[in-house]
């Protein structure tokens, strides 16, 4: 388990102070895929860099299983009341892997040497290093590229090498800082699949920083939404998707939904005097409600927009419908929907 408590970080720039982290507290469970989403400048990157202390928080503390609690105060790190030595900080970093948006591979080293970076000069024999490197390359499916230089690899392959390199020391935790943001959709999908596999096979805890809701949706179990250095919303991905509370969260949720065009539709329906409703279904809804209502309340549904998806094996969806029929019957139908756990919003 990783517990972040009351992290604060302000950057003092010439153009003024920028609050990157404002009293952030989070708990990430073992084996969890935890997403942090936010627009650029929201502080999500700073947050993840404060987990392996590439950046030192101004104040706050981090507790990690097997390593204890590190407290930040005045830009310095303390452990057990004493200044944290560089040696033990480096030791801690070796148990936390990290991957980056631009891969950050060593261009003048082959794939083999990149992956072997942390293994060398560490008292390991040549055979041991050799075995481990190929074990890792097998894991990411690049064993045939051991002697190739990074410049000969595609973006997705580079990120695979970076993942292999980050996992060399058997870390329990992998930090992913916008790892798919520079990749094309195919490569993104394959990297996300790989992260899912690693999580399952190795029990790896993964913290994923992204600005893309689709990444959160395909990989994460839980998500924190950040805005202006604060975590404004947190929960299971399913809950956050089905019932976003903050406007920014709704914006992110809508970014992957075809319902984004709803505003336009509402305007034209208002002008035409039509009845427009938004119906939100979640995992508790599994009846053929529409056809039932149509038959029993004598109303007609015209589905204008719909977005149905599966998150973590559970269905979730919303649709915007135009309903033609008698107002009494419409009201009855809406009551019926509410009884069946469908959330109803009147749009027009």
């Amino acid at each position, binding site marked *: 388990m990783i517990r972040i408590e009351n992290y604060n970080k302000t950057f003092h720039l010439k153009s003024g102070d920028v609050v990157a982290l404002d009293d952030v507290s989070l708990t990430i469970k073992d084996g969890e895929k935890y997403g942090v989403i936010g627009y650029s400048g929201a502080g999500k990157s700073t947050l993840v860099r404060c987990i392996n202390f*590439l950046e030192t928080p101004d104040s706050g503390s981090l507790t990690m299983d097997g390593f204890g609690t590190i407290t930040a105060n005045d830009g310095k790190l303390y452990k057990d009341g004493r200044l944290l030595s560089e040696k033990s900080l480096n030791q801690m970093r070796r148990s936390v892997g990290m991957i980056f948006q631009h891969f950050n591979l060593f261009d003048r080293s082959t794939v083999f040497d990149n992956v072997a970076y942390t293994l060398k000069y560490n008292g390991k024999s040549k055979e041991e290093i050799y075995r481990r490197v190929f074990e890792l390359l097998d894991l990411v499916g690049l064993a045939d590229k051991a*002697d190739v230089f990074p410049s000969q690899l595609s973006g997705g392959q580079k990120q695979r090498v970076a993942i292999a390199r980050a996992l060399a020391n058997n870390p329990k935790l992998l930090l992913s800082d916008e790892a798919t943001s520079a990749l094309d959709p195919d490569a993104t999908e394959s990297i996300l699949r790989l992260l899912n596999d690693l999580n399952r096979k190795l029990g790896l805890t993964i913290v994923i920083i992204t600005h893309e809701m689709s990444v959160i949706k395909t990989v994460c179990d839980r998500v924190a939404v950040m805005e202006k250095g604060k975590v404004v919303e947190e929960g299971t991905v399913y809950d956050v998707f089905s019932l976003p509370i903050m406007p920014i969260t709704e914006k992110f949720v809508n970014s992957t939904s075809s319902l984004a065009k709803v505003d336009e539709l509402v305007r034209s329906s208002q002008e035409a005097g039509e009845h427009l409703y938004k119906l939100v279904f979640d995992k508790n809804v599994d009846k053929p409600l529409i056809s039932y209502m149509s038959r029993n309340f004598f109303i007609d549904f015209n589905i204008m927009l719909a977005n149905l998806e599966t998150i973590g094996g559970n269905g979730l969806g919303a649709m915007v419908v135009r309903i033609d029929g008698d107002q009494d019957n419409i009201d009855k139908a809406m009551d019926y929907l509410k009884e069946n756990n469908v959330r109803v919003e009147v749009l027009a």
Partner: protein
Amino acid sequence: MNSFFKAVAPNLYAYRERFFMSCGQTAMLFLIPGVISFVLGMIFGIILTVTREGGIKQNRILFNIVNVVINVFRSIPFVILLIFLIPFTRFLVGTSIGVRGAVVPLVFGCVPFFTRQVETVLVNVDPGKIEAARSMGSSVMGIIFRVYLHEAVPELIRVTTITAISLIGLTTMAGAVGAGGIGSFAINYGQGQHHQDIVNVCVIVLLVVVCLIQALGNFLARKTTNRTIILRTHSR
């Protein structure tokens, strides 16, 4: 062969022993300060890179000291530096003339130039790579040798070439104040005695040496960039 030289450069032929001696002196004036400057410039360049603000071992005091010293010596023209350093040179090596006496000012003239070049190269190493190394728990020394220097090898070869060529220029100037070498030979026996053929041959010799150094540098830089050449293979 001899008669050919006699015909083309009669004065040079007459002073040929002096000429070969001068070439030897220039070689010493180039090699000894060159090696010392290479080591010192690397060290100072690394210090400036890692101790700067945001560097991996930030240290404002050390950075400022090195930075100011380098700036001061860089801004003094070499001819002035030569005479300015005479007392210090005498104190350090016992003499201010000859190859021994020239080593000190040549190092002082060369190190600041090379330090700045090394610094520029190292600072331009992708910060993402440094960050990746830090995230893997690499020590400061590990990052210096395995990331900074390793990733910058082709660029370091390029700036070493540039510095080596400018050092040859400096050695000829040092010759003017009694260090010997091709520079003083060209002045004393060529220009001083109106033997244009001597000056011409000196120019040609220096030109050839500079071209050779440049070609060697380019070759090594290309060879070490090596992004497509496989150095060794791992068969399973």
